[in-house]
């Protein structure tokens, strides 16, 4: 394993140190392990807190700022944050209008955010939660921990963040988060596994002509293996899976997301295929994002997330945002 790190145990702290130095518009509490907007909290604005294991950068800390998150709680690599972090972040960003927790549906994230929410309630902070579970590769049934939260997390953070910025009350901000989640689906494909610093070797091995289909964002193997096909074939597998779960039509918001080790040129090739697929099926990529946004360390591969837009969602997506990793609008 070769990585640009100082030691396995200091990866998250060292990266947060760099984040703090690079982004003066953020306030990074290294002890509490929370990343804040330097200009928050704003009285009367619903606070948005998210978090999860590290290794998915820029998610979540890269989405802290105007129009998106008020705070992010990074855990160790692929390990959800602990309740203390979440409590600290929640109370700090509370501007009196309540705080929304945006939680990806993993047992660890769910449990730790739940514990934190109880403690926050004890301290008189009203907390609502949006649970993101967009990954169609996992069947949501009695036999699984439910769908995973992946690329749609970015959609939820952006759109709920924009509504909170407009001054909407907690219940509405939570409701739009739920709506975005309900209208979004994702599917991922890996060309290679990632290597966590702790494990020191790839979490699974693929032959030269194999891809892993239906992967998550934690280096866990996918649901099945398939032959490495063309970009068109790989995108078709992903889009067929999305389409089977949520028939596509009309305007959509599309994220073609790199898993961390895939060059941008390949992501644009994938996007061309997604765009063509959507048009073939009577839908449009009305809004899009191509790049490494919800990553899995150095994994090679991509995921596609699609959200069926409404006028409201489009307006909130287009609203100004100023974070390290996402910024537009004036």
């Amino acid at each position: 394993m070769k990585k640009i790190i100082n030691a396995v145990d200091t990866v998250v702290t060292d990266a947060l140190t760099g984040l703090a130095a690079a982004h003066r518009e953020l306030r990074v509490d290294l002890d509490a392990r929370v990343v804040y907007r330097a200009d928050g909290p704003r009285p009367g604005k619903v606070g948005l807190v998210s978090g999860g294991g590290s290794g998915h950068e820029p998610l979540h800390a890269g989405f802290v700022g105007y129009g998106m998150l008020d705070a992010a709680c990074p855990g160790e690599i692929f390990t959800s944050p602990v309740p203390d972090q979440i409590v600290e972040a929640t109370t700090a960003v509370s501007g009196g209008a309540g705080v929304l927790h945006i939680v990806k549906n993993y047992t660890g994230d769910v449990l730790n955010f739940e514990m934190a929410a109880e403690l926050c309630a004890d301290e008189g902070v009203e907390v609502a939660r949006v649970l993101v579970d967009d990954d169609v590769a996992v069947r949501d049934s009695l036999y699984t921990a439910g769908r995973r939260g992946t690329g749609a997390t970015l959609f939820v953070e952006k759109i709920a963040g924009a509504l909170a910025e407009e001054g909407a009350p907690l219940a509405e901000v939570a409701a739009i988060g739920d709506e975005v989640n309900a209208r979004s689906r994702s599917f991922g494909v890996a060309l290679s596994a990632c290597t966590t610093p702790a494990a020191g070797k790839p979490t699974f091995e693929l032959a030269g002509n194999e891809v892993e289909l239906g992967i998550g964002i934690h280096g866990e193997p996918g649901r099945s293996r398939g032959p490495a096909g063309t970009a068109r074939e790989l995108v078709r597998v992903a889009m067929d899976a999305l389409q089977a779960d949520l028939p596509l039509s009309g305007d959509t918001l599309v994220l073609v997301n790199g898993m961390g080790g895939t060059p941008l040129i390949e992501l644009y090739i994938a996007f061309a295929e997604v765009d063509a697929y959507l048009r073939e099926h009577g839908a449009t990529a009305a809004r899009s994002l191509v790049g490494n946004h919800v990553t899995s360390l150095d994994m090679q591969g991509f995921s596609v997330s699609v959200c069926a837009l409404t006028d409201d969602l489009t307006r909130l997506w287009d609203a100004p945002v100023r974070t390290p990793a996402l910024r537009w609008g004036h």
Partner: protein
Amino acid sequence: MDAAFITDWIDEITRLVAGEREHLTALDAAIGDADHGANLDRGFAAVRAALSARPPGTPGDALVLLGGTLIRKVGGASGPLYGTFFRQAGKSLGDSPEVSPAELAAALTDGLAAVRALGSAEQGDKTMVDALTPAVRALEQALQDGAGRRKAFDAAARAAEEGARATVPLRARKGRASYLGERSMGHLDPGAASSALIMRALHISASGSR
């Protein structure tokens, strides 16, 4: 058994977890996200520090401190689950300075119930519950059958080890491994493996020798 007994147990878990760190992580790499060893190692190291900063006066104290520290330092699924297990057990023990093996067994039974409530895992879902459930049951049974504490703890450890092994053929229905569906079959659940270490540590510390 006093607070010192519990801190001995914790020390022994810490040692076993440190020694098995790579193995637990490798098990987690196969069907999870390759962090279980690192998670527990980090957690128990923090527990050690907490214990020396504030030595507990009673067994209940010690277990509550242990559970609380795991909740606050581990993260992931295992942090809240193991944290709840020990914290609930500690609360059940109350503030007696000395507890009997039967009292400890009852407390661990309560801890397990809290874990099941929190994670809503049933036996057979391929989780730590699959090792903890038979372990706690065997412990209660052995003590009821009149076994001494050393023997009873050994029975608990054996039952945990067997319960862990029995997770191999299962298809996971909880936690990350459930995402794999049938591909989770044929692998030992990392949490069940660490539960077996925890129970084995109890036996070792009661034996007073490693």
